[in-house]
C-alpha cells in the first residue's frame, strides 16, 4: 500500500476516533461527574451521608466496571437503539463508550474529591456554607487538578475502548488496524496506525498533565 492510498483511510479513521472519543468524553463528564460527587458525598463522613444510596450506586458502578468493554458494547445494543435509532455506526458507538466510561470516571472523581482535606470542608461549614456551596466552591475547585488527571486517564481509556467500536461499525483507528493491517496483511498500514494511536495517546496525556499542573497550587 502506498502512502497516497493509506492517507485518506488514516484521516477518515482518525476523524471517526475523534468523533467517538470527543462525544463520549463530553457525555462521560456530564454523567460521571455528578455520579462521582454522589459517591463521595453519600459515604460515611461525607457531605450528605446515605449508606443505602451509596451501596446501590456502588453496586451499579461496579457492575459497569466489571464488564469487558466488548461484552458491554453488545449488551447495551437495545439502549443504543432507543437513544440513537440505530445500532451501527460512529454515533451508535458513542452510547456504549459513554456507558463504559461513566463508572470508570465516576470512581476517579470520587477519589479526587476524597483527596480534599476534611478540615477545609469543615472550615467552610463553620463559615455557614451550605452543601451546594461546598460542592461548587470548595470540593470541585480544590479537586480540579485531580479531576483533570482523572479525565485524562478516562480519555486515554476511551481511545482504547474506541478501537473495539469496529465490531458495531463505528470505524476509527483500531478498526482500521484490524480490517486492513490484520485481515488484509497490510503490515505497513498496521505499523502506521499503531504509531498514530501512540502519538494521539501521548498528546492527550501530555496535554492533560500540563493542564493539571497549571491548575495545581499545592
Amino acid at each position, binding site marked *: 500500500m502506498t502512502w497516497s492510498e493509506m492517507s485518506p483511510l488514516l484521516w477518515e479513521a482518525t476523524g471517526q476516533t475523534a468523533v467517538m472519543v470527543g462525544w463520549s468524553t463530553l457525555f462521560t463528564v456530564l454523567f460521571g461527574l455528578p455520579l462521582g460527587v454522589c459517591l463521595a458525598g453519600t459515604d460515611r463522613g461525607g457531605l450528605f451521608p446515605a449508606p443505602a444510596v451509596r451501596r446501590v450506586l456502588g453496586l451499579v458502578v461496579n457492575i459497569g466496571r466489571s464488564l469487558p468493554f466488548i461484552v458491554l458494547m453488545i449488551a447495551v445494543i437495545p439502549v443504543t437503539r432507543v437513544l440513537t435509532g440505530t445500532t451501527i455506526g460512529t454515533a451508535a458507538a458513542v452510547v456504549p463508550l459513554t456507558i463504559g466510561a461513566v463508572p470508570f470516571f465516576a470512581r476517579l472523581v470520587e477519589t479526587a474529591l476524597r483527596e480534599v482535606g476534611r478540615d477545609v470542608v469543615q*472550615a467552610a461549614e*463553620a463559615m*455557614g*456554607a451550605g452543601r451546594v456551596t461546598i460542592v461548587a466552591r470548595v470540593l470541585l475547585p480544590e479537586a480540579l487538578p485531580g479531576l483533570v488527571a482523572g479525565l485524562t486517564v478516562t480519555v486515554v481509556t476511551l481511545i482504547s475502548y474506541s478501537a473495539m467500536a469496529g465490531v458495531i461499525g463505528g470505524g476509527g483507528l483500531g478498526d482500521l488496524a484490524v480490517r486492513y493491517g490484520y485481515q488484509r496483511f497490510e503490515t505497513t498500514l498496521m505499523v502506521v496506525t499503531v504509531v498514530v494511536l501512540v502519538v494521539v495517546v501521548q498528546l492527550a496525556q501530555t496535554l492533560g498533565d500540563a493542564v493539571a499542573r497549571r491548575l495545581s497550587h499545592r
Partner: protein
Amino acid sequence: MITVTGLRKAYGDVVALDGVDLHVGKGEVFGVLGRSGAGKSTLLRCVNLLERPDEGVVTVDGRELTTLGAADLRRARQRIGMIHQHFALLSSRTVAGNVAFPLEVMGVGRAARARRVAEMLDLVGLADRAGAYPAQLSGGQKQRVGIARALAAEPSVLLSDEATSALDPATTQSILALLRRLNRELGLTILLITHEMDVIKAVCDSAAIMSDGRIAEAGPIPELLATPGSRLAAELFPLPPAEPGTVTVALAADQTLLSRLARTHDVDVAVAAGAVEQVAGVAAGRLRLRITGAGTAAALAELRERGLLVEEDA
C-alpha cells in the same frame, strides 16, 4: 457571649464531653487547656455545632444555637469566626480569594467584598501578599490569612482550634500578639483551646482546664492564682517543692504587694522562689516568700484576709 450548659457528647462508648458548663464574657479571651483526648476539641466544635452535642445548650451572642434549624444555624455560624490548627485554607484560591470566601457565602457584592478583603489583609499585615497562593506562604502567614478570613464577616466571637500548635515559638508569639490586639481593638471575644501553657499565659484573661471530658477548674487567671490547690495555677506557674518557713502568695492585680507589705508591717520579705510572667499584659504568677520580723503574723493575716495566701508551710 458564649454560654455552654450541661454539654454531653459520646462517640460510642467513649465519652468526649461529660457535662461541661462554660461561660465566656463579652470581650474576654478564654483559654481551655487540656491534653489531647481531654475533650477540648469536641467542646470547641460543639460551640458552632460542627459537632452536635447529645445533650446540653449552646448560646452564642444571645442566640440559642442548639434549637436552630439548618438555615438559621448557617446564618448564625457566619457570625462565629474560626481558625484552625492546620489553617484549612483553600489551596485553589489566592490569599484574597480565601478571605473573600465567607463574604461570598453571605452573598456580599463584589465591590464590597473587595473592599472588606483589602481591609482585613491590612489588619493582619498581609496586604502585599493578596495575590499569592497559600502554598507560597509560611505557616505564620497562613494563619494570618486564616485570621483575616475568620474575621471578614465581622463575627462577634472567634473560636481558635489549636491555632498556634503547628507554628514555631517565635511565630506563635506573633500570632498570639495579633489575637490580643484584635481582642483589644475590635472588642472580639475569643475562645481558644490549646495544650500549650504559654498560649494561656500570653493571651488569656480566663482559663479552664479540661480532663476526661470535664472542666476540672475554671476562672479568671488572677483568681486561679489565689486559689489554694489550684491545678491550673500550679501547671501555669510551677514552683519547686516548698521549704519550711516559707509561704506562697499570688501576684496579680496588686503589683506593689511586696514593698507595701514590708513598709506597713515592719517585716523583711525575701523571695525564695517565684514563677512570674506577663499575663495579658501585667505581671502575674506565684511567689514563695520568706517573711521575717516583728510583724510577720500581721503580714500573714493581711495576705490571708485578701485571699492572696495560697500556701503556708510552717
